[in-house]
């Protein structure tokens, strides 16, 4: 998995490429926690290139969501592949995560 960080005037965009699973979720966890510790309270996770996610990965996203909600910040996802979206659906996460179809749409919401 590769993580790319991108800053815009509205928020920080975290792009994930490849598989987010038990072997590497800590990378994402560290990245997100570092941002949150730095008072970055607006984060968008770009998933167009993420082709796998396991519950470990979901757990990190959930954790980030909880922290940012508590901070009155904002955490959103965008451009989920169909398979990934289905996992979100199965897990019921679609109801708690703000998920946008594309990066552009997502950025408008910030």
């Amino acid at each position: 998995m590769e993580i790319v960080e991108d800053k815009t005037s509205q928020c920080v965009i975290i792009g994930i490429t490849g598989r987010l699973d038990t072997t590497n979720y800590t990378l994402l966890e560290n990245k997100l926690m570092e941002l949150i510790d730095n008072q970055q309270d607006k984060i968008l996770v770009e998933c167009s290139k993420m082709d796998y996610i396991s519950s470990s990965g979901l757990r990190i996203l959930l954790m980030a969501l909880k922290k940012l909600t508590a901070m009155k910040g904002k955490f959103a996802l965008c451009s989920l592949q169909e398979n990934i979206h289905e996992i979100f659906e199965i897990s019921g996460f679609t109801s708690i995560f703000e998920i946008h179809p594309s990066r552009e749409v997502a950025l408008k919401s910030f």
Partner: protein
Amino acid sequence: MRFRFPRLTFFRGLAFRYSLFFLIAILIILFLPLVIGYGTSSVLLFINAQKDATILTEQTVAQFKNVLQPTELVPQTLVQAMENPNITYSEILRIARDFVLHDTVVCGTCLAFEPYLNGKENYWNATYSYEKNGRLTTRTLGSADYDYFKMDWYRLPKLLNKPVWTEPYYDKGGGDTLMCTYSTPVYRNIGGRRVFAGVLTMDVSLSAFARIVKSVNIFKTGYGLLLSRQGRIIASPRMVMNNQNILDLARIGKGKATQQAIMGMMAGKSGFTSMDGLEARKFPSFLSYAPVAQTGWSFGIIFPEEELYDDMYKFLKMMGWISGVCIFILLLTTIFITRRMTRPIVRLVEATRKIGQGDFNALLPVRKSKDEVAQLTNAFGVMQKELRVYMQHLAETTTEKEKIESELNVAHNIQMGMLPRGFSTPENWDLFATLDPAKAVGGDLYDFFYLDDDHLCIAIGDVAGKGVPASLFMMVTRTLLRAKAVAGTPINVVMQSINHELCQDNPSQMFVTFFAGIVDLKSGKMEFCNAGHNYPYIVGLGEEIRQLKVRNGLPLGIYDTNEYSSESFSFNPGEILVLTTDGITDALNMSNDFFGEAKLAASLTALANRNTKALTELLIGELKRFSRGAEQADDITILALQYKDATMNGAGGAPFIHLDLLNQVSELEKIANRIEELSEAWNIPPKIGMELNLVLEELFTNVVFYAFDDNMEHNITIDFVLPDVHQVQITIRDDGKPFNLLDKNTDENFGKPVEERQIGGLGIHFIRKMMNSVDYRREGNKNIVTLTKNF
């Protein structure tokens, strides 16, 4: 290949280059004498000019002397005579007046005496006679206005006690003309003493000298110059200079040489020197000068330097023009000649170009002469002829070769067509074979066929050599195998029999390495015989491989009488027998390394737990990657036969994959990779593959994190079975503490606000949602989870 000739332009041509070289040579040849000639003649011209100027100077000075001699001599004689008391002054005057009348230069004479010399009443006593228009006028001189005692012509001889030439002066009240005066002191004897009494003068009109000076003519504008003792210009054809002091003319803006020359002139020396001229601006000139006897005057000739060389420059200019014209004519001639000479070469080039483009009948230029070009043309002619013959020959050969090649293609197709494919095996057996031929018709073969319902004959062979003979031999071998292998005949007898037949008619001593086996499909036992062929590999479950090494017999076709013995081998469930030819181990890559036995063994190890088709294809893929870019030199043949593990997959002959894993998260990668391969092999859609992956990851991590309390290594196995083309069955076994994931009620977590959600338990939720069935049982010390997924 097509040769491209650069287009021949004039400037690239031989004609131009030869002419250019020629021209340069001629220029050098011409230029050298010109330079030397210029140097020599300028020196000569200088010497001559110096000589001429010096002679002219001397001649002119001599003329002056001729004129002046009587002017000096006559008064000197008269003054001497005056010392004689018997001669009266009137007599002297008469002689002097006579002289004035007759001499061309002298225009007046004066006899002047000291005050009161001839009586107390006369302070001034001077008689002056002068010639004007051929008549002599005499009058007395001396008055308050004209006090001759203060005049140079009177004062200087008295002072110096010798005759003196005065500076030029305008004699106002005297001769009324520009003149110089030769003044000789007169002495009288008074009481035995010689006493200065007065002077006798001869006036010389300067116009006389001007005439002489004017007559001096050297080069175009060269001119003469007569200087008085004090540097006054007495005469010169340049009127503006006259009566000026030469020192003034030479003072401003003139070089040291000029100053020195003027000083030399005024010091009464003679010489020849270069100087700056006397004009207002510098004008490099030469000056020749000499003193005019006792007058203290100096005469010089000045002429501009450039006039000295004028003629030479004119000559050189003319020479230049003539040379230029000559060179131009020469250049034209050279170009003409060289073009004429190279024209046949140009024609030859054109003809050659045509030949190069494939026109072997292109006409070569005809040359009558026997020169080098003609020889070259002849040589080309011969080459052309031979090329024509060669091309014809080549065309014939090519046609023949194409014919053979197409026939070879047919042979190849026949050979390939003979190999069995699409074989149906009993459900607990799996067989796959492939032959990847090298370019030409090869000598590899494989075969498999039923002897009866329970016995399968498999074989692989490699005929030594390649090409048509090898393929023919291979076909014979294969035909013989089919003929000789019948149910009930031991394999070694079959081999012996084939060997016998092959040895019968084998004039070219060909032979074939051959492995053949008869498999009892029920018992999994194989009787086999290896006639010099590569050892087969046995690939077992759990990535163990070994080679079936038994004593090999000789290859078939060598000794008629050779005995072959058979060996036997019993398949363990799941084991795959892999037969190969040396096309695999002998495959080369670009750096000429062999694939080799070690790499083959390693590849097979890595490819364990696959079905025969996947194993074969992946192995060939590996080989192709290895030898990328290199040409395949030999046939590559693989035959793989698997005795399936009926007990493990529990589903008869369904394909299955077994995974042995350790209780480490890093093993997840293996699961992911295996699912990827498996999805491809079993046609599982990517979405389903991802779900399987996700579910297995959740299960596996659950086991890794929670099943073991010790820090020991544990084995976790996963078995994939494809009981149906649209169903996959997965069994996960671990020896951790009992854990029934089905007990967990996970649904309660959902629908709660974010903050209250429990992280974890999600994996179990996924498993339930994504799988069609989930089953858990505890067997002995093992947790066994069985999942099924339809797709």
